[in-house]
Each structure stands twice: as C-alpha cells, then as structure tokens.
C-alpha cells in the first residue's frame, strides 16, 4: 500500500486510484493467463466488506424484529425506528400509500446495505469504503434501473411506459421533437449512470481526501524539517474533521441513493407525468 511506499521514498507520492485497487488478501491463491492478461484468484478487502455488511444488516434486523413484542425492548425499538424511517419516509411518502408496501423490503435492504458499506470507510481497522469500487456500485444501479423500468412496463405496457417516460404531458406540437429524446435520455439512459457515479464518486473522493490528509501530514512530520510540523499537525486535524464530515456524507449518499430509487419507482408507477 502507499503508506509503506511513502515511508520508503523521500519524494511524496500523492494518493492515486491505485490506492483503491487493493491486492488479494495474502497475495491470492494463484493466477492464470487469459485474454492476454494475468488474472489473480483471491479475495480482496472490499469483497469481504460487502459480505460482512450484508451479514451485519441481516443479523441486526433479524434480532431486532424477531421478538415481535408489543412493548419493544431497546434493540427492537431501534430496529423498528430504522425500519419505520425507510418504510414511511422513503417508501410511503414517496411511492404513495397504495403501492409502496411491495417495495419496502427492497428499499429497506438497499438503504442499510449501502449505509453499512459506506460506514465501513469510518469503522476503525476497516476504513475502506466498499463503494469506492465502481463495480460494486454499478450492479446496484443496474438493478435499480431494471426494477423501475420493469415496474413501469408491467403497469403501463411497453409502449405506454415509454410514452410516459418520454412524452411530457401538456406539451404538444413540434417542441416534442426536441423534448422526447431529451426526456428519454434523462429518464431511461442517464439515470442509472448518475445514480452509480454519485455514490461511487462520493465514496471514492472522500476516501482519497482522507488518504491525502493522512499521508500528507505524515510526510510533513516525518520527512520535512521540524519547522513544518505545525502544518503536518493541521493536516491531521483536518483529517479528523473531514472524517467526521465523511460520516455525514456516507449517510446522505445512502439516503439519496434509496430516495432516488423510490422516486424512480414512483415515476414509473405514476399515471400522469
């Protein structure tokens, strides 16, 4: 990792995307050549994290929901509050009380899956955002794209759905020539891309910033004359401040990701655009 490499060299190596390309734990189990590339067989840290997050989410909420007490204990209360938050503010209030119930498991699982994976960036000794791996995010965005389009097509039919998503109501005449491709682009093509990039880029940039403050501060303190030490300490103070800010961003990104999912579903179910 770059922490080691920075200590070795005299020159400061700024953090780069390579810092996110973690090698398999223990070097992997082996490798083979295919398509002119070397493929390493192994398990990387974010892979473990994503599984761990899923297990944690399930374990927490299974334990919280299992008792079904009329007067909830602490754990059940927390679980119910968390569930009620997603169910009501992300599900019912956005999708509408008529249809929302069948999307609640999806939204609920998604929110806490993303949230826990984001928190991985702050949890000590893990400190790596799972969703700074773009592939992890692409699949979720792809899934939400499939879901909201499928929901819309199922409700309105193929033609009806694309008409709903592409032809803005209350607009007629030649302006449609301009608007229809734009609407189609923004509602069908661009959405999954922005959905994925928003989450990925936030996690990626946030972690990059943290690495920069941590390594920069360390470099100044270790490899520079003592006079620069206050700057290094300032960098570490900022590191802490940014780390706290990151917690907020982690929550917000999980919230926005699920909020947009709910809004896309709502838009696909809507009768009039």
């Amino acid at each position, binding site marked *: 990792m770059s922490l080691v490499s920075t200590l070795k060299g005299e020159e400061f190596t700024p953090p780069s995307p390579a810092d996110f390309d973690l090698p398999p734990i223990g070097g992997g189990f082996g490798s083979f050549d295919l398509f002119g590339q070397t493929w390493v067989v192994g398990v990387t840290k974010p*892979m473990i994290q994503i599984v761990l997050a899923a297990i944690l989410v399930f374990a927490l909420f299974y334990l919280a929901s299992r008792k079904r007490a009329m007067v909830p204990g602490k754990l059940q209360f927390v679980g119910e509050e968390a569930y009620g938050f997603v169910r009501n503010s992300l599900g019912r209030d956005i999708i509408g009380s008529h249809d929302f119930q069948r999307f609640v498991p999806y939204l609920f699982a998604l929110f806490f899956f993303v949230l826990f994976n984001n928190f991985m960036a702050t949890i000590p000794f893990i400190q790596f955002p799972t969703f700074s791996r*773009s592939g992890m995010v692409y699949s979720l965005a792809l899934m939400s794209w499939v879901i909201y389009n499928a929901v819309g097509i199922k409700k309105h039919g193929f033609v009806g759905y694309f008409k709903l998503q592409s032809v803005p109501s209350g607009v007629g005449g030649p302006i449609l020539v301009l608007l229809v491709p734009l609407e189609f682009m923004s509602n069908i093509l661009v959405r999954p891309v922005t959905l994925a990039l928003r989450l990925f880029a936030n996690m990626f940039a946030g972690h990059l910033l943290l690495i920069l403050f941590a390594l920069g501060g360390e470099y100044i303190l270790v490899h520079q004359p003592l006079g620069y030490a206050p700057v290094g300490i300032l960098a570490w103070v900022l590191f802490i401040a940014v780390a706290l800010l990151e917690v907020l961003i982690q929550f917000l990104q999980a919230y926005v990701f699920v909020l947009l999912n709910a809004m896309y579903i709502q838009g696909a179910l809507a009768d009039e655009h």
Partner: protein
Amino acid sequence: MHTLIAPLVVRAAEEGEELNPLLPHLVEIVLSLVVFGILFFAIKKFVVPNFEATYTERTKAIEGGLAAAETKQAEADAKLAELEKQLADARHEAARIREEAREQGAVIIAEMREQAQAEAGRIVEHGKTQIEAERQQAVTSLRAEVGSLATTLAGRIVGESLDDDARQSRVVERFLADLEAGTPGQN
C-alpha cells in the same frame, strides 16, 4: 468464504500507467449483485414480515383498546344520563308530593278550623242553654221558696201577738235561726 476470482487488472499499474477507477472488475459486479440479492430475500422473508406483523398487531391492540374505552365511555354516559333522569324524576316526585301535602295540610287545617269553630259554637250554645235553664230553674225554685218563706214568715208573724216589741223581735230571730238550722216551720 468461497474463492472468488479477482481480476486485478494485472498490475496494469505497471509503473506509470494510471488505473481508471471507473472500469469495474467483473467479479465485483457479480459479487455485489449476489450479496445484495441474498440480503434482499433474507430481509424480505425474515425481517419485513416480522416488523409488519408487529405494527399490525400493535395497531390492532391500540385500536381495540380505544374501542373498548369508547364502549365503556358510552356505557358510563348512558348510565349517568339514566341516573340523572332518575334523580330529576325523584326531585319532581318530591316536589309534587310536597305540593300535595301542602294542599292537603291546608285543607285539613281549614276543616279543623271549621270543625273547631262549629264545636266552639256548639259548646257556647250549649252553655248558654244550660245557664238559661239553670237560671230558669233557680228563678223558679227561688220564687217558690221565697213564696213559701214569705208565707211561713207571714204565718208566724200573724200567729204571735204583735203588740210586744220583744216578742216581735223574738219571732224574727227564731225565724232566722230556723232558717239557719235549715228547718223552717219547726217550733
């Protein structure tokens, strides 16, 4: 954990070449999808039904409690209205009875007074009659007595010689003594 294929773009970071973080690793796409899929089904099957059931049961319990309370309240209200009605009836009844009693009392008093006056009148009348009768009797008997006395006295007076004052006075004294002894005409 299962062995997964991690296609680390093979040290494509071969010194100097930048990695593009936007290029995904296929295995990560698949892994993320599979893990979330499993989580989704587990949540859907084991967690959401529990929460929903708890909500429903709690709502029911609360609504049941409210309904029971409403029934109780309605019952209490009905009871209260009934009692109030009874109370009003009782008050009304009492007032009626009091009024009746007053009327009856007035009637009784009037009757009594009338009776008493009648009685008093009768007694007075009776007294008057008796007094009159006694007076009449007294007058009658007195008249008879006075006559007899006068006759007796006259007889005596006439029987004696009236030329002597001493004798005269003796006769009168004897008469009076006879009167006192209650045996007139003796001697």
